[in-house]
């Protein structure tokens, strides 16, 4: 696993969430319950961008809605609300001063 810079806290504060390609991984970084989280931004359906829209709340559940065909993923565990077998990978995050790093293979 390699430690890679994905962005800064400044970027995160500005956008509340962001995604970026690092080492052929498209990673979605966001704030969840005051913690910085990183999950895959690649929708397992057809590859759409999971974090295109801001987080919304659906029936009390916070979700990302993939731009292409609207599959929704729970922000806490990355599981698709419609097809529980589809789950987004979570990446380990390290914060170092203003920098956000992720571990990628």
């Amino acid at each position, binding site marked *: 696993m390699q430690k890679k810079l994905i962005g800064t806290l400044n970027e995160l504060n500005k956008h509340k969430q962001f995604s*970026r390609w690092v080492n052929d991984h498209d990673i979605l970084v966001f704030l969840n319950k005051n913690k910085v989280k990183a999950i895959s931004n690649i929708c397992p359906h057809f590859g759409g961008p999971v974090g295109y829209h801001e987080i919304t709340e659906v029936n009390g559940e916070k979700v990302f809605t993939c731009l292409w065909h609207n599959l929704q993923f729970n922000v806490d565990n990355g599981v698709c609300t419609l097809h529980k077998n589809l789950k987004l990978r979570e990446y380990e995050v390290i914060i170092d001063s203003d920098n956000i790093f992720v571990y990628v293979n």
Partner: protein
Amino acid sequence: MKYFLKSKSSLKTNFPKKLLLWNYWDHEHIVGTHFKHYKKVNIIYEDNKTCLSERLAKLPYIPFYIKTTDFAILLNGSQMVVYHYALFNLLFCKQTFYFEEDNKGYCKVTRIDYLEVPRFLTILQPFFDKIMRKWFIDVWKEDMPMRKRRLRVWKLGFNDFRGIDYVNNPAEKKFTKPMRPYKLELPIAKITHEKNTKSGKVFLRKIEKSKHIGYGLPKL
């Protein structure tokens, strides 16, 4: 005698033809990628060459949604035709699409639109041309990043309904095979519909106004 308004739009891409056909035959993406223009699609029937659907669509300069019935036919690997009916079949529009791939695997798309009108409405020709060209460009701008990303994940070994193995499983090796020819199987399998009713599969828009940051921040 029948009278038609006509409009022609054409643009080149650097994508393979099959990827473009995937985009056009992925009917459900209209309520996702094109959420600004469509709020519902009901796919009544679909096979590997045809698709019958109903859509709620908003055209440029027209401030309300129109319910259309649409019948798409893939005539061959390079040509498709779509018949649209609206306003209790009073409105009939035909669109023909041509896909021309060059020897580099790049493809040009040409769309020709015809709208049947009574003779006195042929004066609307410039207005029709303007609407249809604008629509082509608006939708094209939303489709291009989708096509680009689809090709990118395809090159990284993406499998539909599964994703990329090395992304899902950190123990997996990176996908290093040379470019696989883009594969297309029609009809495209559906899993994102709200309802499976007797009259078809219903797909609904979930985001009406997006607060978004888009496809991602630029590379560091």
